[in-house]
């Protein structure tokens, strides 16, 4: 009986964390290049119950539920045409490389600008990486970027965008400010065809309807767990107050 109380509590805790993650997805429904997180549950340690007198196994009981892992859903977000030559979108599992003070970071957010020294940077002012380092677009009247990420300035090949790809979303970890890092032990995929689109931005892949449905499910699951706690409480109350009572 007491066990039921704690099991239901673990369920409520998980639903609360799920709600936090869902809220983060929703808060970023309009964030450029955002990838939504999905929650995977895990059953916490099975325990074997023994019959007290016969010393026989009765069966297993789970110790509740925890969040196993959050997975990145790398499906493509909607493409938005901006017509701005400093905006880039890159397909599928491919990402741009940015040199930040914390080291190299990867991003799907291609809303870039040119800084006062003529370098291509993010909105924060961190350098977008080309084939050999920062990309200098100084004294360039016009430039365009083709599908493979090659940058042409005044019709001459100037540089190419450094683009990396991963095999699955699991290899990436979100660290905020639209940056990703590689998870420990993961590697970049080789020879992945890339498709860079200039003048487009990738929206977030958060789907409002799916998140609303999840939100309802979370609230109801939370409520159901709460009812279990209430009922356990009532049963306990009976045990404490009524069993053994001389009427």
């Amino acid at each position, binding site marked *: 009986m007491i066990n039921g109380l704690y099991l239901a509590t673990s369920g409520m805790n998980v639903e609360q964390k799920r709600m936090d993650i869902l809220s983060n997805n929703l808060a970023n429904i309009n964030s450029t290049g955002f990838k939504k997180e999905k929650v995977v549950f895990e059953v916490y340690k099975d325990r074997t119950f023994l019959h007290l007198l016969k010393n026989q196994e009765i069966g297993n009981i789970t110790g509740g539920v925890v969040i196993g892992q*959050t997975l990145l859903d790398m499906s493509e977000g909607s493409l938005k045409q901006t017509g*701005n030559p400093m905006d880039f979108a890159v397909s599928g599992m491919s990402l741009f490389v940015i040199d930040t003070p914390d080291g190299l970071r990867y991003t799907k957010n291609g809303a870039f600008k040119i800084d006062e020294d003529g370098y291509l940077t993010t909105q924060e002012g961190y350098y977008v990486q080309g084939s050999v380092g920062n990309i200098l677009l100084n004294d360039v009247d016009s430039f365009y970027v083709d599908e493979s990420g090659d940058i042409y300035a005044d019709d001459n090949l100037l540089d190419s965008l450094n683009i990396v790809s991963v095999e699955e979303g699991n290899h990436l970890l979100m660290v905020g400010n639209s940056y990703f890092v590689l998870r420990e032990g993961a590697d970049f995929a080789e020879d992945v065809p890339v498709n860079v689109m200039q003048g487009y931005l990738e929206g977030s892949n958060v789907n409002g309807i799916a998140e609303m449905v999840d939100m309802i499910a979370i609230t109801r699951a939370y409520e159901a767990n709460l009812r279990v706690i209430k009922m356990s409480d009532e049963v306990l109350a009976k045990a404490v107050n009524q069993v053994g009572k001389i009427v």
Partner: protein
Amino acid sequence: MNSLYIAATGMMNQQLNVDMISNNLANINTTGFKKSDINFKDLAYKNVVIAKERYSAIGLGSSVDGVRKIFTQGNIKDTGNPLDLAIEGEGYFSVRQADGTLAYTRDGSFRIDSEGRFVNSSGNILEPPVTVEGFFNEILISEKGVISVVEADSEELREIGKITLVRFQNPAGLEAISGNLFKETIASGPAINDNDDGTFGNIRQGYLEMSNINVIEEMVNLIVAQRAYEINSKAIKSSDEMMGMANALRQ
């Protein structure tokens, strides 16, 4: 519960988004106005303990990545007024403000003031200054900016000055000030003077450049912003309900 605060960041950002769209729409008929756009990004991630020695990162919401001016060409409107000038291309007119500093604009609705000087609609003097003297029948401004007048008495064509366009290395770095004007910043780089080869743009006399706002695009952005705001408010409501339930656990 973090979700209350996380969803609140989403709502606040969408409020900013609507503010920006409102400013774009309010300036839909402003001559030479350039629209802004806003980008969002995810905020930091926090590690939370999910089990003994196991952590999971939970995102803390969204924040603004940056607001940019978009310098695409606006529509060109035929006004028939010989002192209305539109630029086709990436150039800017330079004007000197009352405080003596230079500012730049795409708004080419000029007029001639009481002293015969070319001034823009708010009275800032064209740089370099051009002054009209005496009476004239007609004023002609060429694609390259050469201003000529047809004299009233002799009916001769006389050149009186030239409009020099400027451009910037990085126009997105310009600072927008009121009155349709921009100021140069470190980010935009200094103004580069036209070298007469027409790469900075051609001047069209009798036309004005309207704003580059696309109503449909703004309306779509507005719908997206409103729905994003709404869905975040739903997350707050759900979190509130969940906390209410927990509160009602022990009556």
